[in-house]
């Protein structure tokens, strides 16, 4: 009797582990770009009128998806993010992305809005130029740079020489919203 329940339990556990792996590896090539107008409602500062409101809990559809984060890593160099933000996110003439300081917010929808709308002093707007799907992939990758996604999902290595720890080994940090200085 005991061995049977052990068997059922282990089968269930295997199924649970396997189903969680599935989402990690799914490649959603045919996903149509989601219509996204939510950046218009995204708050990027700490000041807000009236009573403090509930924050919308929006996640990147690729936050749990290693393929999507990998695509984001590829797009990060394809769309020339690296010259300003650094190859591994260490920052250059643009702010670093691997630290805990976030000028316009560390929430996925705030990062989406920053990429899509652009920000003063240099950040160009990518909305309308690249599909929403790719912006969400970039959001997931940017989050992985500061250790904001699970280490099992973040990239484990670069295709070329590594100047920094891989994303999967960066410790998670508590994001601080600094605002524009």
């Amino acid at each position: 009797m005991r061995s049977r329940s052990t068997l059922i339990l282990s089968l269930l556990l295997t199924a649970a582990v396997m189903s969680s792996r599935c989402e990690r590896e799914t490649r959603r090539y045919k996903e149509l770009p989601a219509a996204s107008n939510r950046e218009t409602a995204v708050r990027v500062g700490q000041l807000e009128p009236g009573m403090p409101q509930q924050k919308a809990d929006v996640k990147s559809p690729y936050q749990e998806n290693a393929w999507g984060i990998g695509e984001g890593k590829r797009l990060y160099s394809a769309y020339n993010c690296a010259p300003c933000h650094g190859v591994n996110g260490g920052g250059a003439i643009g702010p670093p992305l691997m630290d805990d300081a976030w000028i316009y917010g560390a929430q996925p929808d705030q990062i989406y809005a920053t990429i899509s709308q652009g920000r003063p002093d240099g950040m160009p707007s990518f909305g309308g130029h690249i599909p929403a799907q790719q912006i969400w992939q970039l959001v997931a990758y940017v989050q992985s740079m500061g250790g904001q996604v699970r280490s099992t999902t973040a990239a484990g290595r670069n295709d070329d020489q590594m100047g920094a720890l891989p994303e999967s080994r960066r410790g998670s940090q508590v994001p601080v919203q600094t605002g524009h200085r």
Partner: protein
Amino acid sequence: MSHLQSVIHPAGIQAALVSHLWWILFGICTFVWVAVAIAALIAMRRGHRAASVDLPESRIGRNVAFAGVATTITLIAIIFESVVIGRSLNTLKAPDALRITVTANQWWWDVQYENPVPSLRVTTANEIHIPVGRPVGFNLLSNDVIHSLWIPNLQGKIDLVPGRRNELWLQADRPGVYRGQCAEYCGLQHAKMALVVVADPPEQFEYWLTANRASAPAPVTPEQQRGKDVIEKGPCAMCHTITGTLAGGRTAPDLTHIASRSTLGAGSIPNTQGYLAGWISDPQSIKPGNRMPPPGLASDELQAVLAYLETLK
């Protein structure tokens, strides 16, 4: 029957050597196979009768020694022939050769015709024109993983390795259209990573090269102008280049003369307006996993883009 991609229909010196070697091996193997088959048949027919006959020990020894010596001589002859042909495959280097840099990407070929004067360089993709009767030296690079360039009618295959430059020399002796194929598994769309090689008579090749040095022609009709605007201000320009316009992305095939090419998606589909429309609206259905996302154009924008791309001869 066309011999677009065939080792035994060589169109150049090197391929002729390779095919020569192939026929020698084929002849020897056929001979050995037929001889063994005949010997086995004879042995089967003799069956029990022969089992009772005792051959003298010395005759068995002689037979084995003869077979051993014959095999060794054949093997040495094949190795000698193979080394000689292997060496002569690489003796085409010539100072007046045409130099072409081919960079493999997942899953397409970037092609650049070298010239000391930068403005005379030509960039294209997935289609290589070469002059008949003139040696061509390829510089082979890769941007991501290991690929392999194989144009069976013209040469043997050679790998394109990231971080390393390989060379391949070939010469076409007959005008014609040949198909090349990636011959090293490189990911999901490895099978749809082909290229077209067009061997032109020299004067026709010079004409093609001169035509491809030009920037894209200016749009004429308002619809073509609109198409150009959509490309420049929309998603296309993020990855594609059209010389003479604002589109200058470097991560996808050059579109400056796309209407003059015969295939789309690295040999996946023919380059006609209908296929082009299908490709632009949903590339992931035609070649799943390729790097082009659906750009999400409205139908009138798509028509304008098609009208403009059609003029890029």
